[in-house]
């Protein structure tokens, strides 16, 4: 264990502080989420550009693809997180393109694909959506039915995706499609990218419980996509798709913003006059311990990764715990506000434009999305603890 920062890192910290002091004013508020209004979205995208240029996003992505080309460095990333947290500044977008597709692409994509997609994606100029789930294929994703039939140099896609987040705003989609209907369930799937402008593709927004339309249905009617849009080989889709899912779970369980959220929650308790109340204090301290534990847990995992050690089952709890923790913090803030905690954007008397309620519901969605809590527990017990799978029902 060594948590010291050498002098060269203190210089780095000074640089980060300088950046934040100069640019902080342009940052979106940390409670704004990419599920908010169009104005929120635009402000977040502008900020993203600033962060990429500063080397705070895409830090370790090679320069030729638009990143900062920095060596992975635990200390630098901790300093960045600490300083952003202390300044309570938005840490940049964590969306499906940046946090899930780009790392997958860097692993499986062709040179040409990396050249085409990485730079605009991390800048937030090219927005991606994830076409995985279908009406009949959710937790049992590998049973997906959307087909892609090879016709000359194109794949022709037919079928339907559902719960597709940001499909209405997205420029591009990465999708799992069945390219070989005769192959076994997991073997006939391929991973493909396509433009959301492609003829034959239709997006129908779905209204979420929050009242906005952050996810959609997407219909494919003879949608033609060049065959070299496949990421990886035909039939390799399940493997590539799983890599994306792993990045998704790390993103959803990421607790770097959670400390800020707990800080904001503490402010809510103070303002509501309950910070002296033993019951609220107890709940707050319980969460405080958990936030700290997950923060150090992620440092532990990061150290393992940098040293090339496999952390085993420890990595599988990130999504389950992180999403639940974010949800629990929102719940505490809402409780402290009493009736006021029910108010939503635009209402008289509302606090933070109803961000806590929105967050409370949004984080519930994240407990479900990206593999439900129950599926995470299956993964922990089966792959982590080596307990046997459920036997298949007799046909």
């Amino acid at each position: 264990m060594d948590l010291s920062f050498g002098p060269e890192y203190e210089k780095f910290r000074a640089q980060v502080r300088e950046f934040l002091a100069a640019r902080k004013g342009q940052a979106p508020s940390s409670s704004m989420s990419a599920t908010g209004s169009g104005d929120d979205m635009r402000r977040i995208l502008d900020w993203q550009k600033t962060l990429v240029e500063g080397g705070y996003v895409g830090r370790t992505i090679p320069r030729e693809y638009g990143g900062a080309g920095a060596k992975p460095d635990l200390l630098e990333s901790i300093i960045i997180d600490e300083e952003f947290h202390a300044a309570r500044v938005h840490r940049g977008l964590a969306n499906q393109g940046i946090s899930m597709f780009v790392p997958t692409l860097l692993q499986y994509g062709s040179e040409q694909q990396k050249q085409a997609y990485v730079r605009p994606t991390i800048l937030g100029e090219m927005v991606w959506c994830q076409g995985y789930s279908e009406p009949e294929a959710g937790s049992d994703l590998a049973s997906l039915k959307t087909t892609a039939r090879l016709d000359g140099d194109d794949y022709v896609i037919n079928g339907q995706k559902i719960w597709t987040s940001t499909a209405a705003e997205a420029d591009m989609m990465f999708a799992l499609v069945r390219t070989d209907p005769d192959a076994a369930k997991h073997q006939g799937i391929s991973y493909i990218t396509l433009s959301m402008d492609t003829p034959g593709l239709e997006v129908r927004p779905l209204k979420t419980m929050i009242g906005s339309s952050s996810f959609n249905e997407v219909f494919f009617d003879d949608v033609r996509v060049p065959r070299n849009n496949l990421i990886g080989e035909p039939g390799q889709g399940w493997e590539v798709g799983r890599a994306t899912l792993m990045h998704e779970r790390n993103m959803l369980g990421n607790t770097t913003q959670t400390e800020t959220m707990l800080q904001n929650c503490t402010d809510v308790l103070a303002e509501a006059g309950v910070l002296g109340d033993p019951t609220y204090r107890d709940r707050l301290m319980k969460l405080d311990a958990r936030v700290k534990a997950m923060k150090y847990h992620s440092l532990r995992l990061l150290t393992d990764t940098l040293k090339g050690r496999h952390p085993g089952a420890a990595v599988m709890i990130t999504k389950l715990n992180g999403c639940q923790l974010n949800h629990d913090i929102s719940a505490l803030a809402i409780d402290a506000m009493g009736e006021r905690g029910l108010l939503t954007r635009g209402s008289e008397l509302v606090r933070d434009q109803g961000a806590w309620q929105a967050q409370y519901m949004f984080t519930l969605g994240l407990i479900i999305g990206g593999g439900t809590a129950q599926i995470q527990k299956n993964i922990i017990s089966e792959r982590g603890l080596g307990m046997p799978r459920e036997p298949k029902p007799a046909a």
Partner: protein
Amino acid sequence: MDFGLSEEQDLLQQSLRGYLGERVGLAAVRAVVEGESGHSRELIAGLAEQGVTGVMVAPEYGGSGLGLLDAAVVAEELGRAAAPISFHSGAVMAPLAIAALGGDAQKSRWLAAVAAGSSVVSVAFAPGFSAGGVWDDSVAYVPDATSADAFVLFVGTGAGAAAYLIPADEPGVSAAQLQAVDLTRRLGVLRFSSFEAEAAMRLAGGDAAQTASRVLQAGRVALAADALGAAERGLEAAVEYAKTRKQFGRVIASFQAVKHMCAETFAEVEPLRALLWYAAFAWDERYEDAHATAMLLKAYAGEAATQATTTCTQVFGGMGFTWECDMHLWFKRAGYDRQVLGGPTALRAEAAAIRLVAAPHATQRR
């Protein structure tokens, strides 16, 4: 920067796990704890040879001179093994207190004996006692009360605080065992009748109040480590059992309800490891948030470990409720770790008093 155990600490863990597995198996543990005293000098001497009792004792007194993080590694292993030793008091709090406050004679007499495993020293907090004067009073819940050779006694509070190192065989000192659930670490009552501590028994070499607080936090971290060990070993035992026990024609580990009990337990317990490492390291480095972190850690560990061992007991079904099944060793171990030196709710209240008064934004490090 490196967030994790060092190679030496990994080695310490492995070698101790190996030793405990071979020499202090659960049958050996039961043989000791089912006896009247619950205590075996032979076992302690064996652990001392492995460096357990001297982990925090300075090399000049025959110890390894390591920090609380190393002690936490040891405590986790002792919790896993349900080893009959009050490590948090005898090997963490006592030597820390003596090293911080003791005179040369006290240090060479007791620290060397602790490291060698030839003496057991316990620690008690008696804020109601006054420094000096004649004591006709008692202090309860003292680890190893009937087996220790000496006691570090912290008395008084604030400016009136003082510390003593009192040999158990002094006239006017007596002890009785309390009957508590965890048989692996006995608690007792320490009684003083017309007892006047001599000047030579005073631990006078520093600020007793400050030392008491720092020693107490170290003890809490060690108990949290023990709880982590008990919880993780209990879970391993439950998973192992579930993979062999069959009902309805299949192993119960293939039932999702059972899998989810185990997965939830793992997800609850595993983050403690990193929090433990940080808390111990923060204590070693005297970070500003060390005390609050120790309290939050112990509160979390106490609750997570009791929850874990409760759930894991259920995985064993009726077998889990038997004396024969080893689960109750870890269940009681977790119960002790939770109640002793401050329960979860009290500790969170104490932590809140620190964290919510200090600028809530104070950075984690100095």
